[in-house]
């Protein structure tokens, strides 16, 4: 009994350090600490990729631009001994996570390389589903943008290789919006007269991200610096939530946004239903193809705060149950190598995780906003890093959603979010 209490205490303390390290942001590579992670993990060393052969299955969300399949093909051409296959998971991140979890819980060897949102990495590592890739990362550490490594590091070890990173941008239709807004307040004002503002307003993780962008800019936070309790019920948060609620009531944000995820909001922007859009960089290439007259800018500030961006993106992990870790590493190195990263960046607007890609002339030509993106990423803040992040996010998106679309008062919504997050932190 005492041992259980002691370990429980240790867990809480470590989770505290974990969350604290995670949310301090600012480009640190501190990662996080969670007790129990890594004790029995299998390690992947660079040597394993040398003579790799056999087949490797890459499980990742839907390939919306064809770039994934192309890279797989190129890899196969250049590595005749290893046959890589793409297995597409559903578009929605939540569905991807559920499907990966089902396989890993069943100890299935079907997926060798797991395409994980950065926010699942801590959870998957804690469950023992990922192999320790520290030696593999250390062999090429200097290539990566430091902040991206922070999302894969727990207990001083690396559990995945950054695949792409992300930071939100504000797109605006240049035929309706002449001057880009510098604050969110200004953006919502423009939306009222110039055709509406869209974002990911459905009840899912995307709404959490959008909310946190405004919250962080206004100086708010989700967890205390020691990560032990929720701090989301604050005057800053109430200010932000009231502001967003008012935006819906005034008509600046269309009511149908309550069902929008990334794709739906992009379609709304491209079809002209909204003139301003908060979305990820991937929209750039697609909107260009659709001949929309637009431009983009880094996210505006909230009032007098500092502009904040949330670090998004995906990491590639190697499954503990994979039967071909060497082949998996070989593929992962290729997919996170300069050639593939450049292709993903240019073709799918998936921001690269390698610093050098941003100075490539072809990249700069096709993604003129690359320099701003690099800065945003380098200064990006991750979402709370925690094995129970899913529950924390659900507490946020559920209550923000009800405030925005069901008229719940911001005070009530934030109070509920706070108590639910505190409960989640108690999760055993």
């Amino acid at each position, binding site marked *: 009994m005492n041992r259980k209490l002691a370990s429980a205490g240790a867990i809480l303390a470590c989770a505290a350090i974990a969350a604290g390290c995670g949310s301090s942001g600012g480009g640190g590579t501190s990662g996080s600490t969670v007790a129990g992670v890594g004790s029995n993990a299998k390690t992947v060393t660079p040597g394993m990729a040398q003579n790799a052969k056999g087949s490797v299955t890459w499980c990742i969300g839907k390939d919306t631009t064809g770039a994934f399949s192309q890279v797989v093909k190129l890899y196969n051409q250049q590595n005749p001994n290893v046959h890589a296959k793409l297995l597409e998971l559903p578009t929605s991140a939540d*569905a991807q996570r559920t499907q990966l979890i089902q396989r890993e819980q*069943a100890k299935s060897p079907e997926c060798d390389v797991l395409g994980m949102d950065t926010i699942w990495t801590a959870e998957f590592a804690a469950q023992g589903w990922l192999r320790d890739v520290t030696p593999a990362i250390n062999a090429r550490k200097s290539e990566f943008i430091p902040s991206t490594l922070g999302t894969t590091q727990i207990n001083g070890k690396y559990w995945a290789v950054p695949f792409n990173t992300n930071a939100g941008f504000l797109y605006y239709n240049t035929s309706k919006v002449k001057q880009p807004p510098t604050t969110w307040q200004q953006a919502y004002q423009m939306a009222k007269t110039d055709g509406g503002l869209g974002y990911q307003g459905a009840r899912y993780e995307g709404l959490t991200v959008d909310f946190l962008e405004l919250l962080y800019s206004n100086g708010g936070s989700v967890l205390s610096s020691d990560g032990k309790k929720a701090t989301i019920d604050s005057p800053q948060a109430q200010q932000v939530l009231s502001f967003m609620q008012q935006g819906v009531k005034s008509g600046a944000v269309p009511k149908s946004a309550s069902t929008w995820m990334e794709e739906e909001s992009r*379609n709304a922007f491209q079809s002209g239903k909204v003139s301003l859009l908060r979305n990820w960089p991937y929209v750039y290439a697609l909107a260009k193809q659709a001949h929309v007259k637009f431009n983009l800018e880094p996210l505006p500030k909230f009032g007098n705060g500092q502009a904040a961006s949330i670090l998004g993106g995906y990491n590639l992990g190697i499954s503990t149950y994979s039967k071909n870790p060497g082949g998996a590493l070989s593929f992962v190195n290729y997919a996170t190598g300069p050639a593939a990263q450049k292709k993903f960046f240019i073709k799918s607007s998936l921001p690269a995780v390698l610093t050098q890609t941003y100075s490539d002339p072809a990249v700069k030509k096709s993604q003129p906003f690359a320099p701003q993106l690099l800065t945003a990423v380098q200064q990006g803040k991750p979402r709370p890093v925690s094995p129970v992040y899913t529950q924390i996010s659900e507490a946020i998106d559920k209550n923000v959603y009800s405030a925005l679309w069901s008229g719940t008062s911001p005070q009530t919504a934030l109070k509920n979010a706070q108590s639910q997050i505190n409960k989640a932190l108690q999760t055993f």
Partner: protein
Amino acid sequence: MSTAEVTQERVASRARVREKAGRRPGRGGQILVWVGVLLTIVFCLFPFYWIINTSLKTGSELSTGHVFPHHPSVDNYTSIFKNADFTTALKTSAIVAGSSTIIALTIGSFAAYALARLRFKFKFLILAIILSTTTFPPIAIAAPLFKLWTDIGFYNTYQGLILPFLTFVLPLTIYILTSFFQEIPKDLEEAALVDGATRFQAFRKIVIPLAAPGMVTAGLLAFIFAWNEFLLSITLTSSAHRRPVSAAIAFFTGSQQFQIPLGTIAAATVTITVPLIVLVIIFQKRIVAGLTAGAVKG
């Protein structure tokens, strides 16, 4: 007439009673009735028409609400049949639904015969247990089965689905077959027994052939249920080659870029539904009889 023919006659005449037409209302009433019938037909068929409509649309036309496709094409159909995931899902559904139906019919008919014909203790209790099993919420067995199947290696396998499907399909077939067996007059078997046949021979040679329509009905209803099952299908499978069609459709990533694969989902739904509808049309009298078994007994 032989006893067999007498029986056939009796069974048939009972069926005819059910077919009796209702009373005819007056002129004005008639028009009202036909308007009502028309509304009913539109109500029932319109969404199905919509699905067919959607399946013939491609590209950006999918995001419009056109009532007729402006450029109808069968692209969606060709693409789903080229999609190995879909054809595999069809095979999986056929295997899983078919197996659970056959197993349920076999052991269910034994139990139904006993319940309909034999005297023994606890009959009411057993019938109550069997009936109550049809009302289990699938979620109640999904979680323990997920854990259990993972431990013994049944996760993502055919048997991993066939077994839980039996939970629902077996009681259903027992219930339907019990009613059907009771309709068959006993004198035939009595006569056979008097002539020296064993119970089991009587069962095999007389009851089963007469109950054939009931078996078809029960089998069809069981198959349709298994085909439609969703919760267990998504919980107990994870890969495309073991996923039944209902789960596959829900997770369609489609073969088109950019679009939510509405067209292919519609094409897949139509493809799966049409054989069911054909079966339903052919066997509609039997299906209705099966569904109403016990309802009219009061």
